[in-house]
């Protein structure tokens, strides 16, 4: 039985999660057309290439869209962040009132450990 060595090893979701557990943010980038993508997958959504590599992005981005979710026990932010490297992801902007998060706001990423490691963002330059 032979398998295609290009797809050997852990799948891309596992690679991303393992890096987060080690405190590293990773992002897929197409080796053919340089487009980035998130969540991870096996092919480039822009050109269809199956040749994807991993980069460590800057962690900088801007708010592409934002909403404040109103629950009985309080309000919280949900946002779509566009990374400087191009890919977008769902996340949250902390360190600012949820309704003060505005489209275009410059933000930077942090890893939050609980319950599973995941990315959140803070306004850029917020040293807290």
């Amino acid at each position, binding site marked *: 039985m032979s398998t295609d060595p290009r797809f050997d090893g852990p799948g891309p979701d596992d690679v991303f999660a393992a890096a987060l557990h080690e405190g590293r943010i990773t992002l897929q980038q197409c080796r053919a057309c340089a487009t980035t993508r998130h969540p991870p997958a096996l092919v480039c959504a822009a050109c269809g290439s199956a040749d994807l590599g991993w980069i460590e992005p800057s962690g900088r981005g801007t708010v592409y869209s*934002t909403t404040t979710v*109103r629950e009985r026990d309080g309000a919280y932010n949900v946002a*779509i962040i566009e990374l400087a490297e191009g890919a977008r992801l769902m996340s949250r902007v902390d360190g600012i009132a949820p309704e003060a998060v505005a*489209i275009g706001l410059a933000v930077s990423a942090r890893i939050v450990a609980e319950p599973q490691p995941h990315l959140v963002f803070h306004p850029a330059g917020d040293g807290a």
Partner: protein
Amino acid sequence: MSALRGKTAIVGVGNTKRWNAPGRTPFDQAQEAAVLALEDCGLSLKDVDGLFCSISSSGLPILNMAEKLGIRPRHADGTMVGGASFLFHLQSAASALVHGLCDVALVVYGSNQLSAGGKLVSMPDPQPYEAPYRPRYPISSYALAAARHMHDYGTTREHLAEVALAARAWANLNPHAYARGPLTRDEVLASRMVSDPLTKADCCLVTDGGAALILTRTERAKDLRAKPVYLLGTGACVSHRQIAAMPDLSTTAAVESGRLAYAAAGIAARDVDHVMLYDAFTITTLMFLEDLGFCAKGEGGAFVASGAIAPGGSLPVNTNGGGLSCNHPGMYGLFTVIEAAEQLRGAAGARQVEGCEVALAHANGGVLSSQATAILGTSATL
């Protein structure tokens, strides 16, 4: 123009109009709708040899429906793309009929979403890249699109309110609408915020319901009991699953599904007399008006504020009252076609659109993820 243009027709329509029916399962609603649709055209269950069905709470709806109806379909399609599924089914049914895979197609749906507790039945489709952020599903995804549309085009909450008010005004002309009665601009704008900028008044209803269509090839349609509604063209497009993966949050894949449907039917938006747009939230009506070419991109807000889509306006939209005020049983797509058929038959009573010859029904699924457009016409359009 497509080779399928006018080759098939909706010959039977079934609508249970049971928007709150405790003690009835989704399959009860679906079976009743199927019986009503068959009686509408004078065909029987033993004539049905093509089955098209999707039910939120069932992973194998085709098998369940075939058993319950006692039929042995030789062609079936259970495509599940959310609320747009039934317009994908319609497209598939037209092709299957023309190519002889079946002779009588049943497209059917049922839901007990309201009486089962008002919760959206969640399909087993976990989203681990969204879950940590606790978006309310699906409203937060639509809210993110609405916020981006406001940013890009200056759309306002007042514009969204116009969509809700127009839907209620139409519902007040429909004795079968679930939400009837006066509704003021101030009431809509004062509604409780759920996920900014969308309030409770921007959300569709939660109801039960069942709907069914019977389709045949055109030559057979002419011999049946009811006035046929001809399928002139369809178009569909799937663009993403998660809202963060939507290429442009203020423009939907209705651009593609609409382009395909218009090309297949050989018509343009200006030729459409009656429009049904899946209004899961007020923002969807506004975006589909733009993306299907009824107004320029970014001008949906001004268009609805002019009164265009309300009774007496220049473009009758969601004349049953829509998902906002008529009914929304989990997946509403089939009801857009039901109302288009009623209008083309001239059977819509006080809300009847005068001289209605061409209707467009558009459905949406997931979080603006799947889009499907159907263009329907009377015999005059063949």
